[in-house]
């Protein structure tokens, strides 16, 4: 029989008896393949959610309302004080809006990864491993919940409020900084999600630890850095560079001094840091996936 390992028949290639491939496999960049698969799976979940439109609207609204309480707490605080750590309400609102939107984006796109631990323990990850697309994309897109968009809407609303009330001396750099910090922020949170997922391969309760970093981090960043102890700020900046998400760039936009002694251009490192931690998380993920050992039944 002819060598069939690398057969590339036409689009509807003819088939020899003995079973060569009908259609050829083409090497494609993994990242693109992953994104494509992610899109396919997400699309399917969205379609199936939309079949129950009323319930979707309800849960999205519920989601929005629940997260809105976060900001209401801050507003209530300001009815007693004029400033928090030297920051006015609109300034805190900017911090809050950036952090909440970034986290919301990441939660919308990758929130499903929290369930990975269960898949590892009960062995259902097996079924994702036999499909021809990257596992990370499948895990991230699994049961994509569009209702998580509520968090983003709420974050954006606060952001808009902040921008409307603040009196900022806008420069082109400051304007550019806005989308950059939201997107790199989401990317840093995303890296924490992926690293957390990688950790779930080895530790049973890793998702709790991950939540501490993500939810905890997002909450932390909603307040001005000046109200926290220096050591905490240092840790958030250098160990898990969440500060690059919002504190540093937002403070640049607000013309405020960062509590740590850092030059101002550091604020522009946000995208670089995002890419770097993203790459690290990707490596952790690959290493973790190799340790997967399925289950006995």
């Amino acid at each position, binding site marked *: *029989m002819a060598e069939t390992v690398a057969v590339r028949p036409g689009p*509807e290639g003819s088939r020899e008896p*003995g079973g060569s491939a*009908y259609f050829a*496999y083409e090497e494609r960049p993994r990242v693109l393949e992953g994104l494509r698969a992610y899109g396919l799976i997400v699309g*399917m979940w969205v379609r199936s959610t939309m079949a129950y439109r009323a319930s979707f609207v309800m849960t999205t609204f519920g989601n929005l309302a629940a997260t809105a309480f976060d900001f209401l707490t801050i507003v209530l605080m300001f009815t007693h004080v004029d400033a928090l750590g030297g920051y006015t309400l609109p300034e805190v609102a900017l911090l809050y809006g950036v952090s909440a939107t970034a986290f919301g984006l990441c939660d919308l796109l990758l929130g499903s990864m929290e369930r990975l631990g269960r898949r590892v323990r009960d062995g259902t990850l*097996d079924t994702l491993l*036999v499909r021809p697309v990257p596992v990370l994309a499948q895990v991230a897109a699994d049961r994509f919940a569009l209702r998580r968009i509520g968090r983003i809407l709420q974050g954006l609303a606060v952001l808009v409020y902040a921008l409307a009330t603040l009196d900022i001396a806008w420069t082109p750099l400051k304007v550019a900084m806005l989308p950059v910090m939201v997107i790199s922020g989401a990317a840093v949170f995303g890296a924490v999600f992926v690293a957390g997922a990688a950790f779930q391969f080895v530790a049973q309760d890793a998702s709790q630890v991950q939540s501490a970093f993500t939810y905890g981090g997002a909450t932390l960043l909603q307040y001005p850095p000046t109200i926290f102890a220096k050591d905490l700020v240092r840790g958030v900046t250098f160990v898990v560079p969440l500060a690059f998400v919002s504190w540093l760039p937002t403070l640049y936009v607000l013309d405020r001094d960062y509590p740590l002694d850092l030059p101002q251009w550091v604020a522009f490192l946000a995208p670089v840091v995002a890419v770097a931690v993203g790459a690290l998380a990707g490596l952790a993920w690959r290493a973790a996936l190799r340790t*997967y050992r*399925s289950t006995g039944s």
Partner: protein
Amino acid sequence: MLDTSVGAAGEGTGVGHDGFITLDGVEKVFQVRRKAGLLRRERHEVRAVDGISFQVARGEMVGYIGPNGAGKSTTIKMLTGILTPSGGRLRVAGIDPSRERTRLAHRIGVVFGQRTTLWWDLPLRDSYRLMHRMYRIPDRRYQENLDRCVELLDLGELLDVPVRQLSLGQRMRGDIAAALLHDPEVLYLDEPTIGLDVISKAKVRQFLKELNAERGTTVLLTTHDLTDIEQLCRRVMVIDHGRLMYDGSLAGLHEVGESERMLVVDLERELPAISLESEGAGPLARVVKVEGPRQWLAFPASASAAPLVARIAAEYPLMDLSVREPDIEAVIARMYEAAAP
């Protein structure tokens, strides 16, 4: 290992030249921790697959059997790339599964009887649609394959039912279809008939048979139902404790298992146990049971019944007789027992 070359293993397909699936001393060792005392934990090794070598040619249909915990599922997981072998060499269609898992995925289909590869909350139809896009199956092929599966596996009425609402047998048929939409060259089935009723089993077997005959799909099948093997596979491999115990034809198992056929004779009246001495070669058969005029005689499965019957007819008042074929289950059971440590 008892035997590796008995019978019709891959007749005419040239086993050995064209190893489509090739295993060479493949091992899988699991490190497990066990509680030993209050806090102390003991590490120890489970050798799930312990040096297995075999080849499967393109287009073969092979049964892979063995007792619980023998290492069947572990082997299949290595063949799909889910698990990385701890040792040895493994190739499927020239691909190292664990290193190029996604590349291999386009060429294999997998059915786990124990769990579904479908999306639990979605109707079958949506799962299939997603596969269509995910595997980049040309539209026409997809439609042809889907239609064929729907017809032969009787899926028509199930397409719009969410997978979690399907019964075990319905889900299994849905899973088999899902594994075949992208025209895989190899199909691995890990207990595909588990929990199926008689009709579903027959349907699935017929489907697999046709798939193998018409498309030349290579099939590797694990099962605890030996009828599956009898009806589908000319070649069977038996493993136990992670080692290959037998590789050959199903018929060959009888020889290896020293199985016996049973001759049941009805005599005119009650008589003492039949005793037949052949010249110098010991008894032709041994009497296992006497019940009134009826006697049961066991003789080697490989021997012919004719001389035995002739002798009895000549020396005893014979009324009636019947021959019972050996029970393959019993043969396998003896084999599993013999292998136990």
